[in-house]
């Protein structure tokens, strides 16, 4: 199987009550004590986490520390400590680095208080004669260090995290790569959502992800925001979620400081070209490429210029990078001699990691040409000028589409728009609706003539209204009645009446 078709496998290793576990592992004498960790707030000290003995005595996270003390029996050795989130995080990173024999890429979950390690174990299981053996070995090793863990392997970070948090003490679970329906049975608590969202869903009687998936994405977005959809897509693998490695990434930099400034363009080009070659020579032996080249130019008068070159795919081709840099430098006008250059390769990744969704069915040669074209266009026109449209679940016409720069990783999953007929929407939508004057025979009725600047347009036919509204509690308050109108000369326009103040606007046309 090629690397492109092999599904990713992610291992989630959860350390429940990590702060307590870390403290007891570093001070084994606390094992028999009643350990309570507190955190200070404006209202006083409250229990953050506690060990099993404290839980058995009735201590619960969130209760005041003074109340927790009353649960201790006379023979209990009560140890109350202040939680230290920074130390917890540092210790978890150390554990992650000790787990490196099990994965090439290990990171922490991205929260303020991480308790999970995330490992990319794609193509690694066979070194341990299977995923079950890998989990068993890892759990045994962590157990010997005094840690209690719950482990899960699945196709996505979201799924592995969700499954690990559904397990009982010291359990392990593997979700087969082909099991697509497994997520439907999971509770919504496994979606890594804020408590407020979970409570709201609970009030609506939604308890499983299966129930959630049956609902319309557009209404979910309008009620719960982007976060819920993002988590659902990440769980299903429809939106990429990367693991940020704990191991500090090596930096690839080539720089040069000069004693005397350079002014001749040819000399300056020779200098940055030699630096670029040196930078690429750092990447090439490891078969790495860059998707983002940052160029820093220092001038004699202490002014600095930065140029960023973003690419659609990783490359280590000096000629290609030089051409893109040249395109940007053409527009630079420096008013002082150049005394320093620093080139840094960012977003370094193995070569051949390109965005392939637009290139399906194309030959390799075509795909390369296309990718180079996008790079050239983005370099000269700017990233924001070369985009791909993605639908957004927003009924407001001007907000119903998002333009994603082609140099960004694109999530193919877009929101299903309501089914539109071919000419339901104008082909040209004005960035700002144009205020117009309208004559209507019936009050609040369709227009019969409209005035734009000095033009009078007689309306021959009219279709509508189509009511588009958006609640004030969700953002901009919009209530509009849209009409498709045809003038006596056959021109088709899209106009609307703003219901708050009955003003008319011309918003688009079939140009």
């Amino acid at each position, binding site marked *: 199987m090629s690397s492109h078709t092999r599904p990713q496998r992610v291992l989630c290793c959860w350390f429940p009550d990590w702060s307590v576990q870390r403290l007891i592992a570093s001070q084994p004498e606390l094992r028999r004590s009643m350990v309570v960790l507190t955190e200070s707030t404006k209202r006083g000290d409250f229990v953050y986490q506690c060990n099993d003995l404290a839980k058995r005595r009735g201590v619960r996270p969130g209760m005041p520390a003074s109340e927790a003390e009353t649960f201790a029996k006379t023979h209990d050795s009560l140890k109350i400590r202040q939680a230290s989130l920074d130390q917890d995080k540092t210790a978890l990173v150390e554990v992650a680095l000790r787990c490196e024999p099990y994965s090439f890429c290990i990171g922490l979950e991205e929260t303020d208080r991480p308790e999970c390690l995330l490992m990319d174990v794609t193509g690694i299981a066979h070194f341990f004669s299977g995923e079950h053996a890998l989990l068993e070995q890892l759990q045994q090793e962590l157990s010997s260090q005094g840690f209690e863990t719950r482990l899960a392997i699945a196709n996505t970070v979201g799924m592995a995290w969700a499954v690990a948090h559904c397990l009982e003490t010291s359990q392990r679970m593997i979700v087969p790569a082909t099991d697509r329906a497994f997520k439907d049975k999971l509770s919504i608590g496994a979606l890594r959502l804020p408590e407020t969202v979970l409570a709201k869903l609970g009030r609506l009687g939604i308890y499983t992800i299966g129930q959630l998936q049956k609902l319309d994405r557009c209404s979910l977005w309008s009620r719960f925001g982007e976060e819920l959809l993002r988590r659902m897509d990440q769980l299903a693998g429809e939106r990429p979620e990367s693991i940020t490695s704990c191991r500090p990434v090596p930096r690839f930099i080539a720089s040069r400081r000069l004693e005397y400034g350079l002014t001749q363009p040819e000399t300056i080009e020779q200098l940055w070209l030699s630096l670029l070659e040196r930078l690429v020579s750092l990447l090439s032996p490891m078969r790495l490429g860059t998707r983002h080249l940052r160029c820093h130019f220092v001038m004699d008068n202490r002014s600095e210029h930065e140029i960023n070159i973003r690419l659609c795919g990783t490359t280590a081709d000096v000629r290609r990078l030089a051409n893109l840099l040249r395109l940007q430098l053409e527009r630079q006008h420096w008013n002082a001699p150049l005394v320093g250059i620093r080139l840094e390769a960012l977003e370094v990744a193995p070569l051949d990691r390109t965005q392939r969704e637009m290139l399906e069915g194309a030959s390799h040669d075509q795909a390369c040409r296309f990718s180079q074209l996008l790079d050239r266009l983005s370099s000269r026109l700017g990233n924001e000028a070369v985009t791909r449209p993605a*639908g957004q679940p927003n009924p407001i016409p001007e907000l119903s589409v998002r333009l994603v720069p082609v140099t960004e990783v694109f999530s193919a999953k877009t929101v299903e728009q309501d089914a539109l007929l071919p000419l339901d929407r104008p082909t*040209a939508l004005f960035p700002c609706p144009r205020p117009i004057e309208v004559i209507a025979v019936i009050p609040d009725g369709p227009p019969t003539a409209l005035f734009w600047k000095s033009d009078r347009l007689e309306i021959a036919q009219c279709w509508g209204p189509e009511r588009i509204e958006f609640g004030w509690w969700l953002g901009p308050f919009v209530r509009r009645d849209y009409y498709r109108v045809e003038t006596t000369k056959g021109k088709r326009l899209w106009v609307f009446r703003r219901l708050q103040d009955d003003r008319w606007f011309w918003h688009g046309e079939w140009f």
Partner: protein
Amino acid sequence: MSTDHHFNDPRQTIADLQQQIRSLERGTVSTEITIRKTGCLALDTMFPQQGVRPGSLVEWIESGTASGAGTLSLLIGRQVCQPMRPIFLIDPRQQLYPPSLAALGIDLSRLVLVRPTTKRDALWACEEALRSRSAGIVWAQIDHLSVTAARRLRLAVEDSESVCFLIRPHQALQQPSWAEVRLVVEPQPSHSESPRYRVSVAYSQGRTLRSTTDIQIDRHRGTIDEFSHPATKGSLLLVS
């Protein structure tokens, strides 16, 4: 060692060059090129080859605001674009509305929307897209086009396998052009939800079977059909 006659026979070289010159001067094409149909027979007949030739430059001339030239060219562009190839839309006016393009049947996953801020950049982007030979179609709104720039575009599109559609304002009719066909689109009053347009040939490099046609875009299917005027009834005879 055998020698390659193509490189060594000067007569063959001269013949090839003459063929290229003829093709550039008169827009003649070799017969093996597949002509792409617009989806409307009446519109096909307004092109010299009864359809859109790959490697051709077509200008759609607007007759003012909301003329329909853009909408019609996008619909035909979707039809003539090579399958599985990206669609480049160069939109310096920054008004193209992607949801309407999706409704017209354009695959947004293959769409690249370029929004340059200057006319010069728009022209540069158009030429780059053509020269890369990776686009299925390059569609651009170009208001002003010098003779040199037009010639460069023509050469770029001839070199590529794609099609280039330019949307031009009505004033462009007074300017010389290197387009193979220039079509003027005028809106016509319709008596239904499906809009009607009159398309006429302002210039063509070669004979066309028709110079004017009335077409209608079906609102429900998004197809383009020829609009035939209902026959006028003969005047009633006076009954004595």
